[in-house]
């Protein structure tokens, strides 16, 4: 198989938050490696605090001051983003890589018109004149199916419905035709119908613009619906990575297996859910060995001593678990 150069490749990426006096180190992203090709959708799923947002912010190099990228490479279109000066990173953000939040109110400024906000990145990144940026803004609003864009550009966010605001945020994200879109979903679930609209919007944007999409979520249902690949994060690590269908049918990591068992499904009646015992790990005080071992039902002696690396269990499917070492090829 001749693999084309991936759009994005992360190699052993590691990001820590270090407290002011250096006494507390939170290993938020630990030895993350993955590849993403143009047009692919990768779901990054994991519980709260597992490092999903930190991973996204690391890729964009938008980390808060307390964070350190300890090691690793971020290859985007073959270039190492770690070596880019800040000025160039600013150009890449928004233009080549865009990030959107599912809560549209968090990304729209209530004081500016819709037209100004959609036109801004076009002016900043492409140096377009105000007039031509506004013309593009109208086209973009039309592209995300906002009716009467000529009048909408002069309105303010509060005059829009929730669904329209989402589409406007989508229009801003694609305004400079990025190659990669990172969508960070908040932990709280949204209204089913609004969520369905949002997912449809992302899917349309992706299809029409050939974007690669990283969908950050805690919701395996979204992964099942949207993503062709899944990365399962636990304690800052990608503990399992593979094609979605394979992960759902033949998960290799005990955490992934347990996660799949723990979600209620429509039509499964009142069966007791298989809860994962214990608590999510404290990333500043991880247990030795495999970070999942205190909660793992299949824990072995070795798991308490050594942190497993990623093992390939099949083509395109890897798991960070000593059990997978047995099956590894």
């Amino acid at each position, binding site marked *: 198989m001749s693999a084309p150069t991936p759009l994005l490749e992360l190699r052993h990426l590691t990001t820590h938050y270090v407290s002011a006096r250096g006494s507390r180190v939170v290993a938020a992203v630990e030895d993350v490696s993955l590849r993403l090709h143009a047009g692919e959708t990768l779901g990054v*799923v994991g*519980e*709260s*605090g597992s490092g999903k947002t930190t991973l996204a912010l690391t890729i964009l190099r938008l980390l808060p001051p307390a964070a350190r990228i300890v090691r690793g490479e971020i290859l985007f279109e073959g270039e190492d983003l770690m070596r880019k000066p800040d000025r160039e990173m600013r150009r890449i953000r928004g233009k080549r890589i865009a990030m959107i939040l599912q809560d549209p109110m968090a990304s729209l400024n209530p004081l500016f018109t819709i037209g100004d906000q959609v036109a801004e990145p076009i002016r900043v990144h492409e140096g377009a004149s105000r007039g031509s940026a506004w013309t593009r803004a109208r086209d973009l609003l039309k592209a995300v199916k906002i009716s009467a864009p000529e009048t909408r550009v002069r309105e303010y966010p509060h005059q829009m*419905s*929730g*669904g329209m605001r989402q589409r406007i945020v989508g229009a801003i994200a694609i305004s400079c035709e990025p190659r990669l879109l990172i969508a960070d979903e908040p*932990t*709280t*679930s*949204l*209204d*089913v*119908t*609004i*969520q*369905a609209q949002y997912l*449809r919007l992302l899917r349309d944007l992706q299809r029409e613009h050939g974007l690669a999409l990283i969908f950050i979520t*805690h*919701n*395996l*249902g*979204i992964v*099942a*619906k949207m993503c062709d690949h899944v990365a399962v994060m636990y304690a800052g690590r990608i503990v399992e990575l593979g094609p*979605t*269908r394979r992960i*759902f049918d033949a998960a290799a990591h005990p955490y992934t297996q*347990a*996660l799949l068992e*723990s*979600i*209620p*499904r*429509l*039509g*499964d*009646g*009142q069966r*007791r*859910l*298989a*809860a*994962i*015992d*214990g*608590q*999510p790990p*404290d990333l500043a005080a991880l247990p030795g060995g495999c970070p999942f071992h205190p909660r793992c039902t299949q824990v072995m002696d070795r798991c308490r001593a050594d942190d497993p690396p990623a093992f390939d269990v099949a083509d395109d499917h890897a798991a960070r678990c000593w059990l997978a070492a047995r099956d590894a090829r």
Partner: protein
Amino acid sequence: MALLEAEDLVKHFPVQSGLFSRDRGRVSAVDGVSFAIERSQTLGLVGESGCGKSTTAKLVLKLEEPTAGVIRWEGRNLAELDGAGLREYRRSVQAVFQDPYASLNPRMRVGAIIAEPLVTNERLEASEVARRTGRLLDLVGLPARARDLFPHEFSGGQRQRIAIARALALEPRLVVLDEPVSALDVSIRAQILNLLRDLQAQLGLAYLFIAHDLAAVAHMSHTVAVMYLGKIVEIGDARAVAARPKHPYTQALFSAALPSHPDEQREEIILAGEVPSPLHPPAGCRFHPRCPHAMARCALDEPRLGPVNGRLTACHLYDAVTPEAAERG
């Protein structure tokens, strides 16, 4: 006799219709809603954002007074209870809300937050308070050292667990759960849902359970009520409603639920338009402007809840049809 019965509950909120206008419009947040909550059972409430779920919950909690209608607790009209009766009612009915930030005092340590209802309501020795606080922390999956920390030191998911522990402190008889697990980690949701069901079985707790996650509602509830614009459009056995929804709105809602496996792609019923404002609800059937089955009479006559297939549904499609025809519908 049901534990709690609501009969024709109405809640209108006055609103200023224009910035300088003196005309006062009104939002019909809840508009003639009836239901019963049985001892040890769960009534699930679902529906789009703004349909009146939280307002219904607040009426039950007596955080809002109804504009019209009656709530009976063990047969007694709440409006007729004396001070002692009301205090007892408030103790017996506790709540966990959607927003963990609003309910947690940022300047109190977690141990004190959880112990507060115990301290104000029961004369307990400090050691007993500490023991119960420790048990509650453990139940909701927080480490014992959490008691000495402040809310801001926790992730959003962990903060919601603190709120749940606090609500369970007084061992109430009815707990209103307004989006109790939406903000929790996926791996913890099952623990909490199982915990809530265990407590229900052990203590005979009743729940009013509100969530956007339809599978979770179906899983937790004995009866489910579907609301649209302040009205219940369908109410009945949770499994029957989830498996074979009858009202066109319920059908659309459940069709938008996320799949639990990538192969389970549902035919999504895409509703036209947005939810109308409850300031100006449509005449006739409130769902008619978006309903794929709307008929001429739907814009004129408001359908009443009537029996269809062992549940109640408010839709003209089932007017004057034989039970067999309803079965096909």
